[in-house]
């Protein structure tokens, strides 16, 4: 670029050197590798999604304690959080996760499809579809439920404003969408055409599509937008119990989807780093009484019937359908609904098409 005067030049070169520094930083970062077997302290990296941060902090401490007592070896567990899809891409691109604990099976499937890090049958390796805890999709409304929202049908009425993130960029939003679709499908006389009409009407009532679930929560809770927030039950409980029980309440619809956040060992990474034994023990511990109890405390529905009974008052009963029952699995659901040219895109396509 031609420059005008020395003043401009020095200003611009200052800007440029700042940009340059920013470009170089990632290169400097990541020079140190976590130590594998052989050194005295073993490290484990759990790559997870956003709302599990506090849960895994507590669970990691509990697991480290019992592992060190049993093996007499030092163990430290690192955790990484972010959007589920973004986290999966980081692992595909080389982030050496020992285990992944993500929001949806499709993201884990991609570790197999795109990078061959895990076998195709990964989801059968642990009980209950490799998802040790579950959740579901519920509604959050403002205190007193001023619009009288009770069930899915209320969301498509005119004059109701619904907040949900963008299914194209948020895994959580995909659960919201599929819960609504599944409900419409399972109604009397429900079929794909009816469900599509239902979803189209629902999204007509959505004024903003935040790019992630936490953004949608902020839009609803802080900006005061919308009458209903579609959210994971654990996020909804977190919001109402820790942010404002006097401001919000949770409405559990008559039926919803069984959200199964899956976990798996990343085979290629644990074999390379020699951490398979501890990584497998770590995931198994999620199914133990201690693991299930910590999950329940952090608002995830436990799989263990005994622990679930103990926390029964915390989780109201709701009729749940699975993604396999209603959609034939994640891959199919993703392809039909969320890929380019899928049903979600058609909702927003211009009318002339």
């Amino acid at each position: 670029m031609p420059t005008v005067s020395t003043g401009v030049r020095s200003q611009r070169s200052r800007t440029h050197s700042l940009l340059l520094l920013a470009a170089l930083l990632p290169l400097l970062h990541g020079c140190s590798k976590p130590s594998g077997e052989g050194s005295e302290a073993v490290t484990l990296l759990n790559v997870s999604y956003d709302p599990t941060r506090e849960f895994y902090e507590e669970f990691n401490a509990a697991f480290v304690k019992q592992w060190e007592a049993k093996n007499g070896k030092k163990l430290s567990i690192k955790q990484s959080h972010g959007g589920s899809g973004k986290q999966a891409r980081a692992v595909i691109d080389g982030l050496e996760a020992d285990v992944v604990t993500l929001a949806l099976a499709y993201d884990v499937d991609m570790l197999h499809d795109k990078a061959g890090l895990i076998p195709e049958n990964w989801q059968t390796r642990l009980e209950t579809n490799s998802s040790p805890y579950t959740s579901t999709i519920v509604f959050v409304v403002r205190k007193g439920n001023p619009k009288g929202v009770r069930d899915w049908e209320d969301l498509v009425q005119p004059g109701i404003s619904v907040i949900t993130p963008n299914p194209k960029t948020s895994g959580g939003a995909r659960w919201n969408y599929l819960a609504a679709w599944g409900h419409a499908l399972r109604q009397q006389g429900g079929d794909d055409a009816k469900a599509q009409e239902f979803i189209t009407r629902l999204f007509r009532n959505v004024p903003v599509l935040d790019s992630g679930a936490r953004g949608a929560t902020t839009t609803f809770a802080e900006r005061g937008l919308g009458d209903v927030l579609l959210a994971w039950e654990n996020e909804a409980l977190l919001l109402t119990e820790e942010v404002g029980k006097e401001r919000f309440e949770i409405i559990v619809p008559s039926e919803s989807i069984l959200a199964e956040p899956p976990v798996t060992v990343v085979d290629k990474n644990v074999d390379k780093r020699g951490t398979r034994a501890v990584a497998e023990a770590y995931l198994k511990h999620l199914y133990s009484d201690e693991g299930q109890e910590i999950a329940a405390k952090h608002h995830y529905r436990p799989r263990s019937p005994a622990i679930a009974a103990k926390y029964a008052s915390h989780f109201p009963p709701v009729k749940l359908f699975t993604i396999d029952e209603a959609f034939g699995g994640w891959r199919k659901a993703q392809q039909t609904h969320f890929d380019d040219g899928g049903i979600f895109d058609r909702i927003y396509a211009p009318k002339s098409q």
Partner: protein
Amino acid sequence: MARRARRILPGYGLTLGLTWFYLGLLVIIPLSSLFLKTFTMSWDQFWGTVASARALAAYRLTFGASLAAALINAVFGLLVAWVLVRYRFPGKALVDALVDLPFALPTAVAGLTLTALYSSNGWYGRYLEAAGIQVAFTSLGVAVALTFIGLPFVVRTVQPVLEDIDADVEEAAATLGATPWETFTRVIFPSILPALLSGFTLALARALGEYGSVVFISGNMPMRTEIAPLLIITQLEQYDYAGATAIAVVMLTASFALLLAVNLLQRWSRRRLEARPS
């Protein structure tokens, strides 16, 4: 320009080589790998991705809002620079420092803050909404965010040039009978025009690539308030790396063409200026 002596330091060959190597490593190789990635797609796939109605709407919004923001910044940035150079007032150092803040602020913070201000229950938003103007979650909001992040570029490129203009030039114009408006349009403005164009280009370039602040305030509605960088993220969320790079390539090509055009304009205006007897 007189200060620039020819080759005070030796080693031109070496430094030129280093420059090419450095630019190659940091700019040319990454960008060409971007282009290469799109070659994994067939022409139909490429076209289907980059020319879909949704992508076209996104380019329109991105380029339109960026141009609007850069123009607003050109006008008001010039004003800010003028005040900073020509006047002394209490708190001037503070104002001077404030100008740089959008440089330093993480854009996500900027986006969150602006959204909070302009949404229907925010400080500005509640009054604007009462007046029938919705800013947050509309394309107007996108332009507001892009204006915010682009402000320092114009101020900081125009400011030093204004400082270089001596007051005696204006005095001379006045003694020759020029009105203040004539002095501004015929003496001052032409000499700062190249710098202004340069600041405009930088603000524009910055706006075209902006993501963090915009995703919060735009509402991300497909066909209406969805920017092209969000579409790239959308492709990545579908694990469609080639699709993401395809849109990136379109953005890159269009941005480069636009920036090149403004740069040529800037060069032309400077040459015209230098050709004039002064």
